[in-house]
């Protein structure tokens, strides 16, 4: 990989200021960044190690949890509070990667990981993410793993995270510190962007911005389900995954938060789908209508067309389970 200067940040303030220098990247667990640097996809001139900042703590906050940016995926999955109150998050984390990678990968790094599109991963293939305007060589190529929702003519990549899907369903909030110290909060659903004409811009982060934490709101007694379909039993990215966080009241769906992985450039949520479920008694008919809404604008590339019926089926299965019926 291209050589770089290695710096260790000693405070968030220093980190955000230093990060304003061109070609500077934060280094967390490194599991994706180093992977990309070895292939010449990322070529930072400076790596700013944020692992020694005081961001590795999970603390209780307003009945919810504030998860530090450098909390490792394995520690988050094993945290007793997460296991008890946010099982969908534990499950999603445990569905991802491997024991070793989870020991390294950080909360913020997981959110910021980049697509596994094999055309993005090959610098000899055209990719609008790597080189804006270069074109997308995935379109018309091998598209088994690509998006069926929210894609554009410029990019059909998917976001690979499991963790982010669960966090989206939990209505998590990303805490961001900007250079100068100002902190702001962004809903996870608004954190990642759809590709549009600018697939190289993947999140709402501005230059110098540092993710400091992810905040989970207090649980409200929801039933939480995470399902993931993949090409082997473990250690594989999702073809499709779903996180369902559902609260029932007197036989009716009071709230339904659904997020999907493997379908789009970001963890996919659809307010219309959730609205059509809320207030209704659960039934296969209702779930079908929800799936219709979810998939009304779904658009396959051929090889990934199967994701449409597959999504319908696991949505139904997850909803049956979450609403108390048997799967």
């Amino acid at each position, binding site marked *: 990989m*291209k050589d770089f200067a290695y710096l260790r940040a000693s405070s968030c303030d220093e980190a955000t200021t230093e990060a304003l220098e061109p070609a500077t990247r934060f280094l967390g667990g490194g599991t994706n960044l180093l992977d990309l*640097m*070895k292939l010449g996809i990322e070529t930072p001139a400076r790596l700013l190690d944020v692992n020694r900042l005081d961001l590795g703590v999970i603390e209780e906050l307003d009945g919810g949890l504030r998860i530090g940016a450098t909390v490792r995926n394995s520690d988050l*999955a094993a945290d007793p509070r997460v296991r008890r109150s946010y099982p969908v998050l534990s499950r999603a984390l*445990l569905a991802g990667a*491997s024991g*070793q*990678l989870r*020991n390294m990968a950080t909360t913020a790094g997981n959110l910021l990981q980049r697509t596994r599109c094999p055309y993005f991963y090959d610098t000899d293939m055209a990719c609008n993410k790597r080189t804006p305007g270069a074109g997308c060589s995935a379109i018309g190529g091998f598209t088994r793993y690509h998006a069926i929702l929210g894609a554009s003519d410029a990019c059909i990549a998917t976001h690979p995270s499991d963790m982010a899907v669960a966090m989206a369903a939990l209505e998590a909030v990303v805490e961001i510190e900007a250079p100068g110290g100002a902190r702001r909060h962004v809903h996870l659903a608004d954190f990642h962007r759809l590709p549009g004409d600018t697939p190289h811009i993947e999140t709402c982060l501005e230059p110098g911005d540092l993710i400091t934490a992810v905040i989970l709101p207090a649980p409200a007694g929801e039933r939480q389900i995470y399902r993931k379909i993949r090409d082997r039993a*473990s250690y594989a990215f999702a073809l499709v995954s779903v996180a369902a966080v559902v609260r029932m009241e007197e036989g009716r769906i009071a709230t339904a938060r659904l997020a999907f992985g493997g379908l789009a450039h970001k963890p996919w949520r659809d307010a219309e789908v959730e609205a059509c479920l809320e207030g209704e008694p659960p039934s296969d008919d209702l779930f079908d209508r929800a799936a219709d809404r979810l998939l009304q604008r779904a658009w396959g590339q051929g090889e990934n067309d199967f994701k449409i019926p597959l999504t319908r089926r696991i949505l139904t299965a997850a909803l049956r389970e979450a609403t108390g019926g048997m799967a």
Partner: protein
Amino acid sequence: MKTTLTINGEPREIEAEARVTLLDALRHEIGLTGTKKGCDHGQCGACTVIVDGRRINSCLTLLCTQEGAEVVTVEGLGEPGRLSALQEAFLAQDGFQCGYCTPGQICSATAMIEEAAKGWPSWVSESLEGEAVLSREEISERMSGNLCRCACYPNIVDAIAKVAEARMAEAAE
């Protein structure tokens, strides 16, 4: 740049470019070639080492980030004539053929047993809370980050189950 750390109990000071991974440093700079490079991208687990008690992929770890770390490699777990319990079990159960993924499997399993002892659940755990019992299915899931193309998986699971059982019995006493 200079990195000071402990490897297999020995303090070390290594001078290397920032871009050198822990894996390449172990293999080329220190001469500890037991840790293997299978994919260099965290997709096979052959490079697994134990850092501060946790199993990690050394291929995706920069040496320079490991200032002050305590690294244990397969060489540090045991040597011929003085093998660790897991190394002995792998030998007895034929938990390897070509041997290339083996150091990673053994380092991974060594730390994995401790993860389970702490009660960490896995994707296949029925319940997320309570104790972690290392059934075959649990061991297989937890070890899935270590690929073995010779596919000695059933033997590896046998070896780990044997040692894990002894470890759990020890903890219970």
